[in-house]
């Protein structure tokens, strides 16, 4: 499902305005543009083999540009949602822990943290209901986030196929790890 985990293809022939280490990049030093934060780098294919199409010969149409834009945005969103999924997983665990602890408590009264600096003393059964409601809500959120992640992953995979089909090695859509 994950369209982004595959190892970046670090072909030695790939060169981009960022790889200043490359001999070709010395042709036109471009230290100012840093594209490394970008999930894709439009690189160049500099041929040892003479007959290969060079990137300048591949025409970039507006449609391709829109696809790249879309991919970029989806990639961003994918990361954000992934972070949210992790937060929700942690929250679910914490709520489970709290429910389990609650069962072990003998007191009728439990201190319930409403915020960082306020604990309300509530009867145990009331807290139980509150925790259950919260767990339910988090579960629903979690499921819808998961669904969204999958949808975005699928669209990214589709865009990826389409862009690689057209640009081949001249484009890099892999994550910089």
């Amino acid at each position: 499902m994950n369209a982004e985990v595959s190892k970046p293809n670090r072909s030695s022939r790939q060169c981009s305005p960022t790889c200043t280490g490359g001999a070709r990049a010395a042709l036109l030093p471009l230290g100012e543009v840093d594209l490394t934060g970008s999930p894709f780098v439009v690189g160049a294919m500099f041929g040892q083999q003479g007959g290969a199409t060079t990137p300048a010969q591949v025409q970039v149409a507006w449609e391709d540009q829109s696809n790249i834009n879309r991919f970029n945005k989806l990639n961003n969103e994918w990361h954000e949602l992934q972070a949210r999924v992790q937060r929700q997983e942690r929250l679910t665990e914490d709520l489970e822990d709290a429910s389990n602890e609650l069962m072990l408590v003998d007191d009728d009264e439990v201190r319930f943290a409403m915020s960082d600096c306020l604990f309300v003393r509530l009867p145990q059964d009331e807290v139980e209901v509150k925790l259950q409601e919260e767990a339910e809500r988090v579960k629903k959120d979690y499921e819808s986030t998961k669904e969204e992640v999958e949808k975005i992953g699928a669209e990214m995979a589709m865009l990826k196929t389409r862009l690689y089909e057209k640009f081949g090695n001249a484009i890099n859509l892999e994550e910089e790890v």
Partner: protein
Amino acid sequence: MSSEGGADPNPVLPKAQFIEDVGEYLKGRSADDAIAGLNEHYRRYKLEESRLLQRRVYNLSKLPEVKKTLDIVNLLIQKEGGDSEVTVDFELADNVFAKATFQDVHTVNLWLGAGVMVEYPLLEAKGVLEGSLTNCKANLETIKQDLEKIKDYITITEVSIARIYNHDVERRRLEGGSSSRENAGQE
């Protein structure tokens, strides 16, 4: 505080133009100049992006705060009119808690900021908080749209710079190829 949904994120920001034909685009100027110009745009887009991201973080941190406050007000509403006492422990200073008991509360003080605190009836307080919650979410939505637009600008500019660069390398390769052959012939 925020711009309208359809408008440009920042009116003085130049719109990123997609280059249809690099050769055509470079007519009358050198690749270096073109790239320098795009770099300048790129920097401005990045600046705007970080400004938007900051506002996003601010609103994102406000959201849970308002939610928590709303939870507390809801609890007060739930306990209003009941005859049971509610006991709370509240923080006086770091790690120092005091105990307070209340019963049949009808109003609550909300901190509005800038040293102003207003006492509201519980339901009115709920309204105020729900209002700022909606506001906060609306802000986040506008910021998201602005960010998407600026991200497109950034992507377009990145691609344009790479294309001009590649176009120029290709040109030099063709020129260099022929001149080195000439040199070889002369030697």
